[in-house]
């Protein structure tokens, strides 16, 4: 089954076209790196996919349902690029992480002891337990990001959507962050759509690339990416840099990478 399917999707903000004729499918177990320069419509695409922006043209499917009929939100984990929370929100890091269990609750959405235990063990695993009783708003950017990642994965979603999650992190936390979500992909078959500029760090984990610049420049497997004319002509001289990155990581298995390099 496809986790998500997008057909003929176009979108514009008051006159300015941001997405044009987007078509792609996300299969179960995919780990997709969504690339593209700033302003290329990555965030807009994700918000449309989740119904956070009203769709204008085209079809969006999630887990086999149209967005209107989709209710299985416990399958979704979404980490927004820019989270806006009230400055004086009285919530500890612990309470923020636990809130991620909301989608698993039916009827009276109250938390119990079991939920508290789950929250504590995940916070220990993601190493944000030491500040669990601090106010969320008083944490550093990187600490907040850890807490938000914990909130995003605590319900063990089948489909994880992360919009530039590593921006606020230092490089060792970044490495750790990518390892954590990659483990989810490997062990739990979690499908992941990851917007990132850290191609060198995620190259070894992902199996597909989606390159976006208002329209789809490239969508396909990592192997095809290394050998794609579209990618070469789109990125120009920068391509070699990208591919070298993948190559250094030992993740670009095609011999073409070598031959490109020789040329």
């Amino acid at each position, binding site marked *: 089954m496809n986790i998500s399917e997008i057909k003929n999707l176009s979108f514009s903000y008051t006159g300015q076209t941001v997405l044009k004729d987007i078509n792609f499918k996300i299969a179960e177990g995919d780990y997709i790196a969504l690339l593209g320069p700033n302003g290329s419509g990555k965030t807009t695409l994700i918000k449309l996919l*989740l119904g956070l922006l009203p769709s204008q043209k085209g079809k969006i499917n999630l887990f086999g349902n149209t967005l209107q009929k989709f209710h299985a*939100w416990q399958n979704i984990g979404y980490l*927004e690029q820019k989270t806006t929370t009230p400055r004086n929100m*009285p919530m500890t890091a612990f309470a923020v992480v636990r*809130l991620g269990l*909301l*989608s698993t*609750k039916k009827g009276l*959405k109250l938390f119990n002891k079991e939920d508290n235990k789950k929250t504590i063990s995940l916070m220990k695993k993601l190493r944000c337990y030491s500040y669990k009783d601090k106010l969320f708003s008083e944490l550093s950017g990187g600490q907040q990001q850890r807490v938000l990642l914990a909130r995003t994965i605590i319900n063990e979603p089948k489909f994880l959507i992360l919009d530039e999650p590593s921006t606020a992190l230092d490089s060792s936390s970044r490495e750790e962050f990518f390892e954590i979500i990659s483990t989810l992909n490997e062990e739990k078959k979690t499908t992941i759509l990851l917007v990132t500029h850290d191609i060198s760090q995620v190259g070894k984990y992902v199996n597909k690339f989606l390159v976006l610049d208002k329209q789809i420049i490239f969508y396909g497997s990592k192997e095809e990416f290394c050998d794609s004319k579209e990618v070469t002509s789109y990125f120009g001289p920068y391509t070699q840099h990208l591919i070298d990155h993948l190559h250094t990581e030992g993740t670009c298995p095609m011999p073409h990478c070598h031959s490109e390099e020789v040329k």
Partner: protein
Amino acid sequence: MNFAEFISYGFVQRALISGVLVSLITAMLGVFLVLKRLSLIGDSLSHIALSGVAVGLILNVTPIFAALPIVMLSSLGIFKLSKNKKIYADSALGIVSSAGIALGLIIAALAGGFNTDLMGFLFGNILTVTPAETVLSVIIFAIVIACLYFFYNALIATVFDEHFAKTAGVDTDKINILLVLLSAVVVVLAVKTVGIMLVSALIIIPPTSALQIAKKFKSVLICACIFSVFATVGGVYLSFLFNLPPSALIIILNLIILCICGLIKYAKSGKIN
């Protein structure tokens, strides 16, 4: 007069029951409204309530019943306006607030000027609450408590981060509408009991005080309730002792609590840093 003597009067009992219930409701809703930056909704809706009351006086309908539907519709208007990305929530409240005042003045003029009835609603007099209004307070209190209980975590998620809330399956539109409609009902109730002047203060000040000192959502709710009730009961009692208007004293007591909470916060942050 001592306190025991003071609460032996029927009208004092009604004043205290209604006052305490209204204080509790406004404090709890106020926490959500303040965090959502909708705290001035009390101000806007109470101005609309003034128009509603004026309409009621003209049509010779019980003012509170004329005001209720008008205020509820306006609260939905505020919801619509604040959803518009090009209008800030506080501007939306200002727009509705001005509309309320303008309409109220015109309607009052048509009705033959500001009569004493209208002035009564403006400043309120908690000491003239009728038995029927006390019963109404109890009913509305029960409704608000039930809503907050049933939607507690959905409300928190919506206030914390609407996009997260939506992707956690919360119908945030429904939650926001619930919040503004409850505010509307409470404003109308409060207008009849404590007066238009006091509504806004009761919604804003106790939650702001509580937010200075409490770290958890539940503690904020509880502190806001305690502060609010203390100020209301204290204000009514002092009004007897010194023969001063209760509304003003209630506000002053709330402000004193706010200052104390601010000082506590200041002292704490000094210790940590």
